[in-house]
């Protein structure tokens, strides 16, 4: 799988539609404290099916919806799209892959894959087959690099299973 683009609308501090092209190699993300760098990276884990609000640093999952500022009203929904390309598939599925997660206040999350409604489980399976996913050890949140060291040995074995 090749991940090519990330699109956000109303997700945390990214209230206006934002698009990040993800190219091969090393892409640096810079900016002052509090400007939204970690929010941008969290959008990737979220669209891949993250189900814990705490790991999105919120009290409830609706905390990912733009809450408003002094000059802008809060929003009613947040939406993140991940555009990827699958390895040449045997089963004749589209190579182009577009996964969308959308959350509305009071209505919970919904996922779509290439235009069709799917369950969270389908999304988790899709990314697990591609050696990634919301809990991939390759997605290291801020301050969590040493978490691999602090984890219990059985939790670390699970990382190994993902690599098997």
């Amino acid at each position, binding site marked *: *799988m*090749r*991940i090519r683009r990330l699109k956000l609308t109303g997700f945390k*501090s*990214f*209230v*206006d539609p*934002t*698009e*990040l092209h*993800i*190219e*091969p*190699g*090393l*892409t*640096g*993300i*810079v*900016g*002052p404290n*509090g*400007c939204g*760098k970690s*929010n*941008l*990276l969290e959008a*990737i884990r979220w669209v891949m099916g993250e189900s814990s609000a705490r790991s999105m640093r919120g009290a409830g999952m609706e905390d990912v919806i733009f809450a408003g*500022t*002094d*000059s*802008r009203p809060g929003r009613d929904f947040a939406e993140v799209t991940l555009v*990827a390309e699958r390895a040449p598939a045997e089963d004749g599925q589209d190579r182009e892959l577009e996964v969308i997660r959308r959350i509305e206040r009071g209505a919970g999350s919904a996922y779509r894959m290439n235009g069709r409604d799917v369950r969270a489980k389908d999304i988790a399976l899709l990314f697990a087959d*591609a*050696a*990634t996913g919301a809990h*991939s*050890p*390759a*997605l*290291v*949140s*801020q*301050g*969590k*690099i*040493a*978490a*691999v*060291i*602090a984890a219990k*040995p*059985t939790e*670390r*074995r699970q990382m*190994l*299973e*993902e*690599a*098997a």
Partner: protein
Amino acid sequence: GRARLLAAFEAVDGHFRRLFTTLFEGGQAHLALIDSDDPLEAGLEIMAQPPGKKLAALTLLSGGEQALTACALIFALFLTNPAPICVLDEVDAPLDDANIERFCDLLERMTQETDTRYLIVTHNAVTMSRMHRLFGVTMIERGVSRLVSVDLGGAERLLAAE
């Protein structure tokens, strides 16, 4: 199940040993399956010994040593089963200047050995200068994040303008 896990263990352990001695320019480290004869029930232990030091509990390693050891393990997992994307949010924060360079050298090599795409958040000028491209996140309108593409000079200006 079991055979695959054992094969993965061997592969990850092999990469981990090599990456650790590269990052620490010496020393030695390895992985071990503990607590059970059945790999599917066992725990994964990390043994890490920086150059010249005695093998001690991982928790006694310093902040910078733990960050480097964790990077060696994460990259060893990639090399075994390449992930399409890797996100590192300020993992270079605890590193001193010399280790920043070694970390960036390793990143550079990883991009040559795998197809993984890397998104790296950093405040460190050296790390910034080693990136292939840079994006800036600004909040010119307070509370509203915007993404802009910057060149290295732009990044310094962006940070200075806070």
